[in-house]
């Protein structure tokens, strides 16, 4: 973490804030709740108390504006700079400005910016924190779409703010955990409960609890589907995504919802056709095509439109061979070969997996192509196969990609 030069802080524990105007992107009540939640993040780990005022000068004045808005930092239209805020002092000190040209949202979605997340970051500035270079910290300068339903401050953020204000008082009446968010039951697709046993159908009194994300190095970790995407590798399990980027050594954790909110969790298979910047996701007898965040129109489509017989209800795994432009679909003990150039299944298929890929067994959970090898994932093991020779090279743990 870092602070501003001379570490300015509020020389009091009771800090006031005022919301000067609103964004038309969100309900006023949602704007107020997002900002109140953002303040609560910081009050829960410091002695600070934040009180909202409705007129006159407050310590922290919050507003939405586009382009030039009266200070030296004009906003730049959609994207780029989303917001900024000033360190503690009189006048403009502490104030937080949000770029009205952005699309502000209550939840993390693609194409929008979660106001709670951005507000929490800017209020960190309003309280005296500058940017942190700790990846994953709230005060990291780059917007990171993430699931905020049970959002907690990163330890680096807590260390920073407590270096300025100290820990909360023992007798503090404030809860130490952020108050529970409004469960977005109205936005989670009704299919989501398919991940739970019928006994746990969500009722008014039972909040929806997605299964916990397994630890990266859990020796029993298995995957539903794996694909590359613009140079990164994405591993899917239930609603969770592990992202391995060539730029960062750390594995990033996301949810399917944070990228593709309308897609159902629990994919069966996924693969990328890199030359077309296109990834296909398969679930049951349907499949979707996405390009970055965007889901291509006309999807989902039935998998039978690819040429599978009606007896095939779902597929286990898929992998695309960038060299031959063939995609292999694995179903039970057989596999099909699909020609991406002619968009048709090849003759002579299905063939037995055991005949052409000896030693890897079936059914296959997920498949990946990387560096001239196929990687077939079955349970907590993965089988590295030389693509040209179709020869099993070695067997590794499925999560060996996570630097375990």
């Amino acid at each position: 973490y870092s602070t501003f030069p001379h570490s300015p802080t509020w020389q009091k524990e009771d800090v006031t804030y005022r919301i000067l105007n609103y964004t038309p992107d969100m309900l006023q009540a949602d704007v107020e709740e997002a900002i109140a939640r953002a303040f609560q993040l910081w009050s829960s780990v410091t002695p600070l108390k934040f009180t909202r005022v409705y007129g006159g000068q407050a310590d922290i004045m919050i507003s939405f504006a586009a382009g030039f808005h009266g200070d030296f930092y004009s906003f730049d239209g959609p994207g780029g700079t989303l917001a900024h805020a000033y360190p503690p002092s009189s006048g403009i000190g502490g104030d937080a400005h949000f770029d009205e040209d952005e699309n502000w949202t209550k939840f993390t979605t693609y194409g929008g910016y979660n106001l709670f997340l951005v507000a929490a970051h800017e209020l960190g500035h309003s309280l005296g924190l500058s940017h942190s270079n700790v990846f994953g910290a709230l005060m990291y300068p780059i917007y990171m779409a993430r699931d905020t339903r049970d959002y907690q401050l990163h330890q680096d953020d807590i260390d920073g703010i407590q270096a300025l204000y100290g820990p909360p008082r023992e007798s503090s009446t404030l809860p130490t955990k952020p108050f529970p968010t409004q469960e977005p039951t109205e936005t989670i697709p009704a299919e989501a409960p398919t991940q739970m046993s019928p006994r746990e159908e969500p009722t008014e009194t039972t909040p929806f609890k997605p299964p916990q994300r397994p630890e990266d190095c859990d020796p029993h970790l298995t995957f539903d589907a794996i694909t590359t995407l613009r140079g990164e590798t994405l591993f899917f399990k239930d609603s969770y995504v592990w992202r391995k980027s060539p730029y960062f050594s750390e594995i990033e954790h996301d949810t399917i919802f944070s990228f593709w909110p309308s897609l159902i969790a629990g994919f069966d298979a996924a693969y990328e056709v890199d030359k077309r910047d296109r990834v296909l996701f398969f679930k049951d007898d349907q499949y979707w095509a996405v390009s970055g965040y965007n889901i291509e129109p006309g999807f989902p489509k039935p998998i039978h439109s690819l040429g599978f017989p009606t007896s095939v209800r779902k597929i286990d795994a898929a992998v695309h061979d960038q060299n031959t432009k063939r995609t292999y679909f694995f179903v039970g003990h057989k596999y099909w070969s699909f020609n991406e150039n002619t968009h048709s299944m090849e003759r002579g298929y299905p063939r037995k997996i055991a005949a052409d890929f000896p030693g890897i067994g079936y059914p296959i959970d997920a498949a990946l192509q990387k560096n001239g090898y196929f990687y077939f994932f079955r349970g907590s093991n993965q089988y590295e196969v030389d693509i040209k020779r179709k020869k099993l090279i070695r067997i590794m743990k499925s999560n060996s990609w996570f630097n375990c």
Partner: protein
Amino acid sequence: SALPVAPKKEKEDVQFAKKYLENFYDFKEEKHSLFKAKDLSLMADKIREMQSFFGLKVTGELNHETMDMMKQPRCGIPDIRS
């Protein structure tokens, strides 16, 4: 972080990078500098500072991942200040 984006034109990138480094890394381009090389060296220093801040490979060059990082949506407060 956002999903990676598609590649962009180089000249635009240099201009974009200059503005980015001015906004967030205290880069001051000497508009009337006679020594182009000095200007480039100053900019390379700032690129290195930015790469180091984000944990990227420190090369001083405007490579793909550096440009990608600069294009990510972000907070308007500088990352470092003189």
